[in-house]
């Protein structure tokens, strides 16, 4: 029995290879959906902010909250400290609101959603029907004792949410899972209490911009003592051209609750760059636990660096309660530019933060990503495992901050940063900042940089495995620890992505 289980998990590599083979092309999500859209006029102004708020039918407090953010933003400058080199973004030459016309009146059920939209999600492999999701990692021949799992989905298309599945079933447990625009109307007290308390509107340039113009996103509330029985996920799709996507996600895990949440993202192949500036706020109260996983596969641009998404995201968790726990897992394979540091504020005593990351940069992609672990409470623990892979002419930077405050007695951090280089035109950089202001607390940092090893490659070849498969195998081995941190349902998809995004980088 235990061996069968092993086989299921262990079989991933072979499955990966097969799936990668069957895909053929490198970015399979690059199609566009031809659909009637409604846009706000190009550019950003107070009028646009008001318009977005009005489109969402928002109460005054929300509009004022946005306007204050906007006023602040116009006085701010884009940050220039990341190790990124990209053409300036023309904030006046894009749309801040794009909505399929058919969603003018929010569909009451998925039956009312326009077929072209449903097809888009079907093509992307996202279950919008309330079907049971067959765990992808387990191959059919040995899944007899594995129950199909349910995954509830909130699908966001350009600026608006298309629909959310399994809502009723979740409601019975008191769990709220809906779009944030709905939450603002239906649960204003909850939203008001928590929005902007983890990522304040003044936090940084992109977070402030998001606060002014966010159009939709997901909202989750798990009541005290409830363990959410299914994976919750949001699927972001940018479709419209010259349109920024600014979603905002807010997750609150009340005392002793648990939730596992996953976000996925894709976009069509376009010649021009598109901006994505999201904000994610997590709040974990006493003994609550949140697992937040990202599989980021925005269009990375072509092999000459043309097009691709600019991904500037602020993600932060507040471990507000004692013994609370947040685990970030991210697989970053897409985007032309990634700027992202999912962080944990370990405020509650004995709270824990974990960050597991695979960041892949190929061709002309640039990634500057990492985490911040801010230890404020006593006995807080954090663990960082970062695996950076660079190929082609890409640049990959890990940037991390571990900060242990004077009052955070007996705290611990462990950081491990491994970089793998494929070829000799790419770069890997590790920028760890460690500040420990408490004598009883300890930090540990390990870092390695390696090249894909010729002897490993030859060993695989000598056993009859071809070069492309061998590379996929070795890379997936390199990332194993992080891939295993993903929910089982998504581990396979992530493995495929890792292999696909490096296709053609060796040899």
């Amino acid at each position, binding site marked *: 029995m235990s061996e069968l289980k092993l086989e299921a998990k262990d079989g991933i590599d072979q499955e990966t290879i097969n799936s990668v083979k069957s895909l053929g092309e490198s970015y399979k999500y690059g199609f566009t959906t031809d659909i009637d859209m409604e846009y706000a006029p190009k550019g950003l102004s107070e009028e646009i902010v008001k318009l977005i708020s009005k489109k969402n039918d928002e109460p005054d407090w929300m509009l004022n909250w946005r306007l204050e953010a906007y006023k602040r933003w116009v006085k701010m400058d884009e940050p220039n400290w990341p190790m990124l080199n990209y053409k300036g973004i023309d904030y006046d030459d894009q749309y801040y609101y794009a909505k399929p016309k058919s969603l003018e009146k929010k569909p009451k059920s998925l039956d009312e959603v326009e077929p072209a939209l449903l097809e888009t999600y079907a093509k992307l492999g996202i279950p919008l029907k309330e079907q049971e999701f067959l765990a992808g990692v387990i191959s059919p*021949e040995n899944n007899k004792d594995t129950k199909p799992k349910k995954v509830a989905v909130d699908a966001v298309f350009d600026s608006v949410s298309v629909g959310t599945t399994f809502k009723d079933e979740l409601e019975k447990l008191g769990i709220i899972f809906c779009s944030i625009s709905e939450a603002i109307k239906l649960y204003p007290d909850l939203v008001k209490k928590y929005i902007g308390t983890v990522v304040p509107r003044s936090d940084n340039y992109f977070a402030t911009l998001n606060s002014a113009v966010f159009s939709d996103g997901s909202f989750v509330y798990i009541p005290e003592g409830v363990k959410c029985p299914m994976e919750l996920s949001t699927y972001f799709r940018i479709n419209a051209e010259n349109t920024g996507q600014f979603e905002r996600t807010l997750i609150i895990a009340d005392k002793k609750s648990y939730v596992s949440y996953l976000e996925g993202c894709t976009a069509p192949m376009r010649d021009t760059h598109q901006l994505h500036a999201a904000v994610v706020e997590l709040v974990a109260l006493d003994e609550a636990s949140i697992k937040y996983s990202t599989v980021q596969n925005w269009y990375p641009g072509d092999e000459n660096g043309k097009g691709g998404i600019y991904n500037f995201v602020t993600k932060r968790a507040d471990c507000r309660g004692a013994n609370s726990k947040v685990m970030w897992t991210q697989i970053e394979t897409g985007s032309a530019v990634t700027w992202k540091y999912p962080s944990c504020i370990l405020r509650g005593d004995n709270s824990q933060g974990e960050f597991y990351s695979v960041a892949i940069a190929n061709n002309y992609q640039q990634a500057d990503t990492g985490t911040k672990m801010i230890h404020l409470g006593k006995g807080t623990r954090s663990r960082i495992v970062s695996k950076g892979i660079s190929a082609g002419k890409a640049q990959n930077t890990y940037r991390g901050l571990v900060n242990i405050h004077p009052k955070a007695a007996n705290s611990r951090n462990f950081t491990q940063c491994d970089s793998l280089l494929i070829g000799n035109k790419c770069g890997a950089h590790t920028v760890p900042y460690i500040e420990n202001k408490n004598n009883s607390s300890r930090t540990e940092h390990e870092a390695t940089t390696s090249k894909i090893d010729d002897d490993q490659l*030859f060993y695989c070849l*000598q*056993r*009859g*495995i071809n070069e492309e498969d061998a590379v996929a195998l070795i890379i997936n081995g390199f990332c194993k620890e992080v891939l295993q941190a993903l929910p089982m349902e998504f581990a396979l998809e992530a493995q495929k992505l890792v292999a696909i995004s490096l296709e053609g980088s060796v040899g």
Partner: protein
Amino acid sequence: MFEIKDLHVNISEVEKKIINGINLKINPGEVHAIMGPNGSGKSTLSYTLSGKEGYEIEKGDIELDGESILDDEPDERAAKGIFLAFQYPIEIPGVGNLSFIRTALNSQRKFNGKDELNPAEFLKILREKADYLNVDMEMLKRPLNVGFSGGEKKRNEILQMALLEPRFCILDETDSGLDVDAMKQVSKGVNSLRSEDRSFLIITHYQRLLDYIKPDFVHIMAKGKIIKTGGPELALEVEDQGYTHLLN
């Protein structure tokens, strides 16, 4: 039949000539042993036969059943039945031993136009062979060769050989670093694989191994050349008197 014809090899990286004209004919079912002092080019020969990059063939040919394999990539040679048990098996972190072997086996089956084995079929065959070779399942769950003892690594090589069922097996110092019991196990594995249509090239330092695996021919290699060929008695002679008298 496997044939090496007047083979001359340079190591590209250092532009150094290591193999200086080797001729060797190995018929199906035969076991050939190669002995020789350190640095005489034995490992270089094994890498060259299996097609490793960086070994430049200046002259000569390598043929399988009368056809040159020089243009075949290492993975193609493997699928055609050439197997190398490495002197130093390579560690690959994060890649499960079991899934590695299954990937290898299925890649070769695919190359040869056979159906891939599903996990259950594979597991059944694997268990049989692993039992026979005294490899316990625990070792198969671990990442490939990572943290394996010397003996475990070598047994794992023989296990892979048993599963991949090659036609031409090269064993590069599989016995070095093994105690007597481990050596007996490895020999038992090799002997069980001996058959009419499978041949072996066994590189070793010690006559000892050849007590367990009886060779048909023994070749002495020095400075990139075969300087003497004989039967098992030649190995005993080396054991007794060393190489020096042969080198002069």
